[in-house]
């Protein structure tokens, strides 16, 4: 390999890449380039404890900012890459500077899908949440507000709804699908979160579309719904999904389909370019998927560093994810898409429950709500390719540890 490894995007995946590169003692010099003017930080707290003021800013770092230099990593924070020139193995910054690479790793992440201007998406008081600056602005807005409307009942929207309740605001969540979390979870899990939020005083309107956000003097004032109803609001949070940042790759002729297409070694269609994290899509069980999670970003970043150091690794991690809302900890292992059967297991010790997803006899995922035991054992079973019988799992008397051990190769 001639020239340094250039990493574009200094978020979770970029940080995991350089951390693994350093622990493997990789010889190639690394340049970590990121548009945000900071070292990589954790995004999950932005909608949770950071938003409520329970976690301070300097505890968001993935690694202390001086760690990179101390470990031989050149950093260029606050620098946006405007263009890739793969034929010259060069990236070009927005100020026109050209930086050559031997290998390039794209970790550009994703960005919130915006509400069109015509629907009031650019009014003052309408927020999205991705970066620390967004969280600061949202926190400030919530501080002076009485009522928040959350458009979109996905994880980020629901977490922000919970945080806003904690801060004392009235909150309404508007979801156009029949149920919140429809895209990502079963009916059982949606139901659980619907009651959780209603118990905490959040109004949830499902099967409801917004007609527009109406404002006065450029400031959002109320949200008009297709039901004809209008709700006043001082703040609106739009949480309607994320789009992968593929534009650089696409313009450079790299294959993209709902993300930058990567193989099991995180290689793109260009032999010298890898990609990791929210910006990638890959094939799992015959389907091209894209994940937005710390696990995926960290594991793909880590794997790419191993591959570039000559290891013959393949990405096969069982996906996992978590979310925190009020006093409920949701933990998910596996991917439930395409399940044909879901059973509930109660945990009367913790007051929690879990949903176990199957296609036929095959266990594909577990959602655990305040039930870390089911998450931990479910995840181990998924990692080992075990398929515990649904009727056994459903029975709280079945000891999961014994079930796991019985299925382990001797």
């Amino acid at each position, binding site marked *: 390999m001639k020239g340094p490894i250039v990493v574009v995007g200094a978020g979770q995946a970029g940080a995991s890449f350089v951390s693994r590169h350093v622990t493997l003692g990789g010889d190639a010099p690394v340049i970590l380039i990121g548009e945000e003017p900071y070292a990589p930080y954790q995004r999950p707290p932005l909608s949770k404890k950071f938003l409520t003021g329970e976690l301070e800013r300097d505890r968001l770092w993935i690694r202390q900012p001086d*760690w990179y230099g101390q470990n031989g990593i050149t950093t260029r924070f606050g620098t946006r890459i405007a263009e890739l020139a793969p034929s010259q193995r060069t990236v070009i910054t927005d100020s026109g500077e050209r930086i050559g690479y031997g290998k390039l790793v794209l970790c550009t992440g994703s960005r919130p899908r915006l509400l069109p201007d015509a629907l009031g998406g650019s009014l003052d008081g309408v927020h999205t949440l991705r970066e620390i600056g967004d969280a600061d602005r949202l926190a400030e807005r919530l501080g002076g507000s009485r009522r928040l409307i959350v458009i979109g009942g996905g994880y980020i929207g629901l977490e922000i709804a919970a945080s806003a309740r904690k801060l004392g605001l009235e909150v309404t969540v508007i979801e156009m699908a029949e149920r919140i979390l429809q895209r990502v979870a079963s009916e059982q899990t949606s139901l659980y979160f619907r009651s959780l939020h209603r118990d905490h005083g959040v109004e949830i309107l499902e099967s409801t579309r917004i007609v527009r956000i109406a404002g006065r003097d450029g400031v959002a004032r109320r949200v008009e719904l297709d039901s004809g109803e209008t709700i006043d609001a001082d703040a609106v949070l739009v949480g309607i999904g994320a789009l992968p940042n593929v534009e650089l790759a696409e313009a450079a002729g790299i294959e993209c389909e709902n993300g930058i297409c990567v193989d099991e070694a995180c290689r793109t269609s260009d032999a010298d370019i890898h990609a990791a994290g929210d910006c990638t899509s890959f094939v799992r069980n015959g389907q091209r998927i894209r994940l937005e999670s710390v*696990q995926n970003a960290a594991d793909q970043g880590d794997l790419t560093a191993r591959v570039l150091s000559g290891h013959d690794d393949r990405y096969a991690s069982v996906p996992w994810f*978590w979310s925190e809302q009020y006093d409920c900890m949701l933990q998910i292992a596996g991917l439930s898409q395409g399940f044909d059967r879901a059973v509930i297991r109660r945990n009367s010790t913790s007051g929690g429950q879990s949903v176990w997803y199957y296609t036929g006899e095959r266990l594909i995922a577990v959602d655990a709500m305040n039930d*870390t035991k089911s998450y931990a054992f479910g995840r*181990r079973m998924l990692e080992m390719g075990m398929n515990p019988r649904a009727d056994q799992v459903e029975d709280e008397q079945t000891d999961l540890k014994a079930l796991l051990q019985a299925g382990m190769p001797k």
Partner: protein
Amino acid sequence: MVKITWKIAGKDDITADIPIGNTLMEAAVDNNVPFIEGECGGCLSCATCHVFVDPDWYGTTGAPGDFEEDMLDMTEVERSPTSRLSCQITASTELDGLVLHVPIPD
């Protein structure tokens, strides 16, 4: 600040002054302790912050909580009687001088 030591088989010990209130997972990452990753940021979902508390200190750190107890069943290196997830231990004056042993995967 309190002093914490990580012992890593085959390598030099790492001893560092840790601000009171930080978790020992954060402390380990900040001090480059190998094999401690803290992927989930301390919310009991990854088990990549597993440590063996020195038996002399286990009485002081105390035993794991319920959720932590469950997660200890999925650590990469198998748990021992003094296993803890270090994101669940917060630096406090009682822990000044604490010794942790870092599990090393094969």
